[in-house]
């Protein structure tokens, strides 16, 4: 089984070494690829000095476009599984092995790491939990599937989902929307309990000002995803 970790990086000169070292230590069965989203700091130089596996985008595409490049890479090199890991230290690499095992054993198309099954670790703020509950309820109503943590960034994709995401992936705030796309394709999605940490560095991409845009955009995207023709 070929397994790939996708690391989107935009101006991550401070974190990229730590992230890659942690992956090489804790997720030995995984290959990794850094997608440098046209960083304007020394991300590229640092990676090339260390001989890291890096793909350099010629223009800044934003998070969705960068991650999609990773899925395209995974499809091109015929990986069986791909997972996105950000450089902010929220996700424990130890869960990657558990998720990969789960996919292999149960033959599902996608596994999501959910904070809200065992309710351990960092549980996010109340406001965010309300938003997440809303998306969870919306997805349940539209597809019938129970997804307790649709905004989780810890998601491992099997071959079918890699192919789908390589073809079509949202530009920004992709998590809830792409779960619905996967479900609509008739693929199987399962959740397993994980523990997440509070982020170590950097800030969330969803500031209070952007949260209104986030809620509206993601809600609309989910609704449109539901009525899309395949």
């Amino acid at each position, binding site marked *: 089984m070929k397994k790939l970790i996708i690391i989107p990086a935009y101006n991550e000169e401070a974190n990229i070494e730590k992230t890659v070292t942690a992956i090489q230590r804790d997720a030995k069965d995984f290959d990794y690829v850094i997608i440098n989203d046209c960083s304007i700091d020394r991300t590229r130089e640092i990676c090339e000095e260390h001989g890291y596996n890096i793909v350099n985008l*010629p223009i800044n595409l934003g998070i969705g*476009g960068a991650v999609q490049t990773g899925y395209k890479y995974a499809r091109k090199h015929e990986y069986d599984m791909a997972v996105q890991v950000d450089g902010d230290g929220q996700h424990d690499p130890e869960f990657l092995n558990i998720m990969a095992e789960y996919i292999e054993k149960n033959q599902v198309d996608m596994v999501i790491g959910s904070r809200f099954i065992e309710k351990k670790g960092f549980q996010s703020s109340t406001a965010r939990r309300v938003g997440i509950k809303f998306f969870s309820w919306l997805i349940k109503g539209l597809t019938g599937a129970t997804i307790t943590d649709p905004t989780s960034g810890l998601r491992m994709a099997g071959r079918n989902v890699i192919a789908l995401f390589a073809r079509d992936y949202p530009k920004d705030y992709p998590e809830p929307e792409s779960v619905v796309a996967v479900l609509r394709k008739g693929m199987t999605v399962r959740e397993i309990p994980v523990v997440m940490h509070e982020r170590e560095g950097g800030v969330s991409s969803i500031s209070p000002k952007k949260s209104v845009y986030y809620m509206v955009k993601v809600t609309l995207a989910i609704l449109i995803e539901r009525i899309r023709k395949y």
Partner: protein
Amino acid sequence: MNIRIQIIVGIVVILALVVIVNMIRQKKLELRYALSWLCVGIAVLVLDCFPQLITWLSWKVGIASPVNMLFFFGFCFSLIIIFVLTIAMSRMSIRIKELAQELALFEKEKKEADN
């Protein structure tokens, strides 16, 4: 409408048409996208030469004041052009994204082949 404003409008429109055609000639503007602007220019020129057409047309569509009809149609036309441009822009941004991704992956492959 008096003859003076008719002449001024006529000159401005002809100048605009010349600029547009010249830009198409220099390949700064694609004929595809300039076509609608050329059509507007010609339509305005025709109405400028025969202002009684406006009165006749507004009476036909049932708008009391000819000026209102001009504003209304002008507004609708602007909206259509803007919308068409939004469609073109969305398509382009998708294409640019695909190109950038392919280029990055291709460059990566080439580098690996070179080593």
